[in-house]
């Protein structure tokens, strides 16, 4: 199969039962994407497939043949952090960090679709990304801040 991950093309053979998260982590060594709940609930494994966020733990690699994938490793522009990444650090939107790649990829999908979301829209979109450390308040703050910064930049 063929796919593009963070702009890099890959041709790779995978067994029929391989999940996308295993493909990314084990075959491509992109361990920034995490697997936690394994049943599509927690959001730690969130990646973008052709711009849509999906749960890579319950998606087969074979489903993304020909697709463009963005993982956490592809969010920053080289060493230049994405406004969301900066905002998460500055607002305390992370603690242990295990859910953070999924949070940021999901929030990126949100801001790509809706550059100025309300608090309610953020909560609706992000409720599929569980976090046990922060109680979510500082994550919400970070997303609002990133939206503000990006808005000014436009």
């Amino acid at each position, binding site marked *: 199969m063929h796919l593009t991950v963070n702009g890099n093309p890959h041709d790779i053979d995978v067994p029929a039962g391989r999940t996308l998260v295993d493909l990314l982590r084990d075959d491509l060594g992109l361990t920034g994407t*995490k697997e936690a709940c394994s049943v599509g609930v927690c959001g730690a494994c969130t990646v973008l497939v052709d711009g849509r966020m999906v749960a890579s733990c319950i998606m087969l690699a074979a489903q993304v043949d020909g697709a463009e994938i963005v993982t956490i490793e592809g969010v920053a522009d080289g060493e230049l952090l994405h406004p969301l990444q900066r905002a998460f650090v500055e607002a305390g939107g992370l603690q242990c*960090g*295990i859910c953070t790649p999924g949070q940021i990829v999901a929030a990126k999908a949100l801001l790509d679709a809706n550059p100025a979301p309300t608090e309610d829209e953020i909560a609706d979109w992000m409720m599929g990304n569980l976090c*046990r450390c922060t109680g979510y*308040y500082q994550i919400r703050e970070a997303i609002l801040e990133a939206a503000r910064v990006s808005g000014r930049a436009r």
Partner: protein
Amino acid sequence: MVDYHAIGTPTPRVDGVEKVTGRALYAGDRRLPGMLTGRLLHSHRPHARIVRIDTSAARALPGVHAVITGDDVRGHLYGRRIKDMPVLADGLVRYFGERVAAVAAEDEETARRAVDLIEVEYEDLPAVFDVVDAIAPGAPLLHPAFGTYPGTQPLDVPSNAYDHTVTERGDFDGAFAEADFVFERTFSTQRMHQAYLEPHTSLVSVTDGRAHIWTNTKAPHSIREVLTVTLGLAPEQIVLHHSHIGGDFGGKGTPLDLPIAYFLAQASGRPVRMVADYVEEFMAGNPRHATLTRFRTAVMRDGTITAHHVEYFVNSGAYAAYKPGGRIGGATRAAGPYRIPNTRIESIHVYTNSVPGGHMRAPGGPQGVFALESHLDAIARELDIDPLEFRMHNLIAEGDEPASGDQITRPRVRETLQAAADAAGYRDAKALHVGRGMAIGDHGAGGGVGNAEVTIHPDGAVTLGTAIFDQGSGTYTTLAQVVAEELGVPVDRIRFEIWDTDGTGGEDDSGIGGSRATRVNTVAAHAAAQDARTALTRVLAAQLGVAEADVALRGPDVLTPGGEPHTWAAILAEVGRSVTGRSHVDERGPTHMTGFAAQIAEVAVDPETGQVTVLKITSAHDVGRVLNPIGHQGQINGGVIQGLGYALMEELTFADGQVTSLSFGDYKIPTMRDVPQLTTVLLEPDNGIGPYQIKGIGETPNTPVAAAIANAIADAVGIRISDLPITAEKVYRALQNRGAAAQ
């Protein structure tokens, strides 16, 4: 007031960038050449003798490198203090989920298939799941050989109640005889999973006679100590290497599968990695304990509490092994910071055929506080005294001895409660079926030993060496602030060198847990920075040709009498060598200082469905100096929301001893859509511990939430739920029952 430049300033996490870019490595991200995957066979019986295990088909499967059972690890016992748990079941299983056999194979799929091929024949034994049943006469005894385990003493009478502690003060019986009223009530709490999103992971490689370990534990030195006994190795044969830890909340104190991964690595001659899945996490983790608390409380007509009896039963599960002290606290939390002269506090830990409990955020605290604060609220309402006034009347002030028996310097509990009440608008008008309830908790900072090493390099960079494995709460950031403060450099100048367990040069290090990280390690970092400063002064004095006493360091500058100001970095660069300061600190002594939290929950109850909506939580804290406001608020936010889950949503459910809530689809934790408005109030810092007068914040915020919500429900609709979690169905039934009783 000291003027600080780094301490107290909102400081972004020092590990933030690597975490937001996905570069931070967790134990599950590590790969070693030749690494095998380990998987487990768990017991599917709550209590049974193992008649036979046949591993031949599993061994014969291509790609399988090792299969081990209890026979292969006989005599290897695990336990933080009480070593009562065999590494793999030794002829007997005591809970559904117990580890029975393990396989190491080339890949996950092969390992799973091999596990499926292991055949076990069991002979069922009678099982007990409930603490009351387990201490009843004739109950099956889980550990007849209790007194023979390392870390135990024989019991006077064989019992599942392996620890029964009683403390009594005052004229207990006399006070009950003279009381105007005696209130009796029973409360119970559920098992709760820590629900960290990184499962337990163990990677072990045995090379050159040493076990190299990557696992997610926050207490590497203590775990190494425990492993010496379990694995039969000398301390120097075990090295725990650093990885980031994906959440802990108490659950990562004990590395569940690590001893098994070691024996698989030994048996296969290859590195072995085991990653638990969440079925295993929920079925066989180390959850917060279920408890049952019975109270008998003597109260005078004016609302003065005169005597209090606590019987606090802890459902230990099948083993005591996961509890660092063999037992948990909480019994004294069920007595609390109240001025009650006559008390009897009983703490009873009971074995049952269920998943063994471990630590979770303020172990025993939320259980004891839920029971006590619900009970007192019920008493106040029955006496028709406002719950706030009732508490104020009985809470300790300076010089009082609390019922808990704790010694507390400058207890600011009343001030904290009043601050919460004021910020919450406690006396404001309420809509129909809306209620407000309060609860109080406290937690002192734990003690321990810690190490640090600060090196100032000729290029001006500063390295902080530490043995701490930060589990996410932000210890590295506060340590960087301390070093930056003491050396007068910006925080981003500090680089970290995180040591493996060899790094302390043989010194012990208590790691993280019990709110000790800030207390112990700020002292360690402070001392190492001071030591480095002294060394720097010596080097500067020599280079500048002045007496050490004449060298003054002011931020980046070094001043000498009459001399020109220089930056010390420039002079150190001239010298061309680095200077180092070290510390090993022992902060095990009691502090007599605690941090109180008072919370007020405002809820709306739908009387037709029993649904409880938490509208608002006000959380007031008696704090010391706040080192990092971002991290401090993060602890409060996260703690409160865990408390919300505990109160309303989360429960490991059981059927015949088997955990049935086995995924995050069934075991629900709060989402972003479920969090209420949160108002935080911090009291003006007044006292604290160590060089910066700090207090711990990690544990208190999650302690009172459940009781505050239960009390708010009582305020809203007049019913009391005395068993957690407070599901809509329980509220609905209670309302129905009251309706039926009224007719």
